[in-house]
């Protein structure tokens, strides 16, 4: 443990700086989000910590999966952290969000803890879904998962947006999908109804270039996903830059809240891992490509460089955050590997809400189990 007293007090740090951010590509819009973003020291540290937490949590999940402590499907988010963190920076927790199965990062930004996320991955009773859901089915307040069927989450998100409009609460719903899902018919059905009814929905396509092993060029006749909403205005955004994502989300949110209806954001991003833990991720792309993105566009490095070069934080301070994050992940992993599995009494519970307990047939006619709400 370093005993070096920081040679500068916090009063020496720049409290706030403004950065140039990449211009977005526009579809059916005269103007886009601003070309600069102002970041406070506080925000920077928060985004850094959250992205680092997601990064380390996903790498720990990789480790636990290889040790066979996590089983089944595990779709990791490392590389895409700026999307989840930037989006949350542009909305509030009273807004709503739904995504597909690459959902651990969003479960965190939407209020879940690393402990309960990891314990869900290991299938323990302390998991965020009590071990009943697993990697793809985690929920928090105003976060509707975690959805396993490609594309199904998009109409669900529009339904949440319809409820926001119906209840008149000025909230909106962010509905995420990947480049692979972007060709799903139900998404076009959703574009249609959302526009017709002017639902407060932000469609976000997280384009990480590959749907499992199928690159965008091999699956889409048009890879300009931000234009695929046709009559819906769209913007294409650098998804590796947390400030770009945040400003774009703020812009999109303002559009929705003004009653103009839906808007579509394409986030250009990248995943370091393969599609899931059973995919090494190098049969359909090169290691060089992955390495290039890591060295040139890593979202956490980008933020770190910005903060350091503008004297918004010290290297030591960021290292301390790294250490704290590592500890948080270790503690969570410890919990996730020692917490007991759910009790067998829980097997049949949560079939119906607000109902009397009822009998459930077990594997044999003589096995009578009970379901409670």
């Amino acid at each position, binding site marked *: 443990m370093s005993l070096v007293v920081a040679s500068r007090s916090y009063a020496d740090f720049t409290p706030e700086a403004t950065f140039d951010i990449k211009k977005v590509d526009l579809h059916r819009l005269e103007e886009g989000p601003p070309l600069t973003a102002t970041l406070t020291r506080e925000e920077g540290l928060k985004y850094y910590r959250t992205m680092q937490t997601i990064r380390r949590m996903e790498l720990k999940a990789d480790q636990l999966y290889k040790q066979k402590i996590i089983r089944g499907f595990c779709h990791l988010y490392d590389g895409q952290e700026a999307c989840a963190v930037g989006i949350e920076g542009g909305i509030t927790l009273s807004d709503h969000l739904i995504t597909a199965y690459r959902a651990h990062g969003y479960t965190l930004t939407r209020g879940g803890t690393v402990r309960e996320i990891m314990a869900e991955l290991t299938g323990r009773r302390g998991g965020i879904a009590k071990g009943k859901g697993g990697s793809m089915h985690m929920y928090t307040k105003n976060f509707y998962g975690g959805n396993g069927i490609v594309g199904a989450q998009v109409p669900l998100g529009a339904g949440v947006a319809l*409820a*926001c409009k119906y209840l008149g609460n000025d909230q909106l719903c962010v509905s995420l999908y990947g480049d692979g899902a972007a060709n799903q018919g139900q998404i076009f059905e959703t574009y249609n109804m959302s526009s017709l009814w002017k639902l407060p929905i932000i469609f976000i396509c997280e384009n990480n270039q590959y749907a499992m092993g199928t690159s965008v060029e091999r699956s889409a006749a048009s890879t300009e996903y931000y234009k695929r909403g046709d009559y819906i205005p769209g913007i294409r955004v650098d998804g590796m830059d947390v400030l770009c994502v945040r400003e774009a989300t703020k812009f999109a949110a303002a559009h929705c809240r003004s009653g103009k209806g839906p808007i579509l954001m394409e986030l250009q991003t990248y995943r370091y891992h393969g599609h899931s833990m059973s995919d090494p991720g190098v049969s359909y792309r090169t290691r060089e490509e992955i390495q290039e993105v890591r060295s040139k566009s890593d979202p956490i490095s980008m933020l770190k460089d910005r903060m350091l070069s503008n004297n918004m934080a010290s290297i030591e301070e960021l290292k301390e955050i790294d250490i704290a994050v590592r500890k948080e992940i270790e503690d969570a992993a410890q919990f996730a590997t020692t917490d007991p599995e759910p009790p067998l009494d829980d097997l049949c519970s*949560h079939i119906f809400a607000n109902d009397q307990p009822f009998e459930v047939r077990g594997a044999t006619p003589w096995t009578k189990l009970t379901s409670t709400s």
Partner: protein
Amino acid sequence: LNENHFLSCLVEFSKTSPAAVQVNVRDALNQAMDEELERDEKVFLLGEEVAQYDGAYKVSRGLWKKYGDKRIIDTPITEMGFAGIAVGAAFAGLRPICEFMTWNFSMQAIDQVINSAAKTYYMSAGAQPVPIVFRGPNGSSAGVAAQHSQCFAAWYGHCPGLKVVSPWNSEDARGLLKAAIRDNNPVVFLENELMYGVPFDLSEEVMHKDFVLPIGKAKVERQGTHITLVSHSRCVGFCLDAAAVLAKEGVECEVVNLRTIRPLDVETIEASVMKTGHLVTVEGGWPQYGVGAEICARIMEGPAFNYLDAPAVRVTGVDIPMPYAKILEDHSVPQIKDIIFTVKKVLNM
């Protein structure tokens, strides 16, 4: 409001003879929706033609005029999309009624019914309830041919997390639809187009705005001692007609109206079989892996088996896609004579 509370409130009503009013099934459904829309602002209806067309089968007649665009929503012909939207609205706290113009079209959206609606409360360990009703006409109609005539009771009845209801008469339609709308869980509500225009007498107690029927409870429509007929939806009427004919020959049939497919009220069926010793199930759907097959399996596995004096058998739709020509169609569905024939076979007459 659970059934016990309701029944205790009704002690006063039973003191005077209930005034009967004639209501057909369509109007019973219409009134049920109207009353529930009025009772709870979060209830709304969406589907094709439900608003300005007054409903493809006029079940939602007058509702759009009364409640407007916000609560009665015409959708484009995009089942997968609007079913998903309905489920999402339920996630966020509204109480949607999602109409499928017929249940045949639900196949386009079945992923949203099963994977998004039925399973979510379980996957979320109780964090996310889904208070939604999916409703529409199910099963065979008249002359609408193969793609518009399938019965989905067995398909949806297969899935944990769903309640599946199949009313026969107006009292069923009214009480079960109100119960379904008030239920905090996904309910598949299987109506029957050929029943929509059929009138039934409804008592004052049934017409009360808080009248609900319990989901998961079958009703014995006719007491009998020789044989149990178990059915759902339109076939209940055929069973009663067959029972009337058989009564003239001294055979007294007990007719059980399932009312609910899932959860199945096996206790009522068992009690009846333990009394009569004979069981015939009657349904419009196909035989293989159907509702009747499930009932027979359960009876085999339970206490009623020891009371059976003959194997339990099923009367079902013919195992073919529905043909168009009237003579062929008539021979594709169970007729009253098929029920009578089967009863006599089982009773060795």
